[in-house]
């Protein structure tokens, strides 16, 4: 199974590199879809059907919407010329990266090595979750009982996204 996942991951990396460098935006979007559906197969192989289901539906809908948007606007990528300003931007980017890397290394000094964490929270979630929440599907039990704030936040984000789209794309107000 690890071999299969590795092969899919390699294909996904190739797809994302191609999506970055494609001249035609439509083929870039199709390659983005390649990455998304690769993630779906990985989720299924790792036995996470909940995530796979959400991912496959969201991927399909966003792919349809993005293809429609690209076909309607422009298929050409905007050419960016290299000048002194981009040098400054790159310098700022590297500075921020170095800063974040330094503090990241500081922060993980006291952590356990990778894969050896003490799973205090996960233990209490997994053991007796069915009695505590009454839901057989553990993922739903965690999403709507233990981490209900998280779910409410996600729903509010979607609500705000819809309101933002409605506000940005109205034509009457602009005139």
């Amino acid at each position, binding site marked *: 199974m690890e071999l299969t996942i590795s092969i899919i991951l390699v294909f996904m990396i190739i797809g994302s590199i191609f999506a970055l460098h494609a001249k035609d935006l439509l083929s870039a979007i199709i390659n983005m879809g390649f990455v998304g559906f690769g993630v779906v197969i990985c989720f299924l192989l790792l036995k996470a059907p909940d995530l796979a*289901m959400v991912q496959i539906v969201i991927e399909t*809908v966003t792919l349809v919407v993005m293809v429609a948007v690209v076909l309607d606007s422009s298929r050409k990528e905007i050419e960016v010329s290299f000048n002194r300003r981009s040098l400054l931007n790159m310098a700022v980017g590297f500075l921020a990266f170095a800063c974040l890397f330094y503090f990241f290394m500081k922060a993980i000094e006291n952590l356990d090595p990778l894969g050896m964490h003490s799973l205090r929270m996960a233990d209490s979630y997994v053991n007796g979750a069915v009695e505590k929440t009454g*839901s*057989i*599907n553990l993922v*739903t039990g965690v999403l*709507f009982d233990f981490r209900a704030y998280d779910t409410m936040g*996600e729903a509010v984000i*979607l*609500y705000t996204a819809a309101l933002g789209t409605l506000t940005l794309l109205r034509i009457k107000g602009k005139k």
Partner: protein
Amino acid sequence: MEGMSTIVKKVTQLMAGLIFMFGIYIILHGHLTPGGGFAGGVLIAGAFILLILAFGSSSLKLKKEVTGSSNTESIGILMVVILALMAMLFGAKVFFFNFLPKGEAGELLSAGVIPLYNIFIGIEVAGAILTIFLALVIFKEESSK
């Protein structure tokens, strides 16, 4: 926006209802089988998006629909917050407390308020995705006039 060919229309007629029913099934069985409010909500929105893409519609009709869908999603998110507030009044004084009887695990009517949360999150997600899609379609229709 005009519709597509007859074959696409016929297949859409056959499939859209099934997709809608499957979305409702995923939402209602969210606490028993994989899935839940998010996946089911996007499936329901997908059924509507399929219908609109295949049959096409005038922008006036779509405007009526976008009012409806944005109202629906507002009601969905409002009901989630009201359910969370009701948990403050009944039982323990905590947000999102599971105040209904839990029943027997594995039955359709079990797990207290979790199915209710699933239903309202599903309504909210379906409304939000449909609203975003409709806003994009209406923008295209009106700007091309």
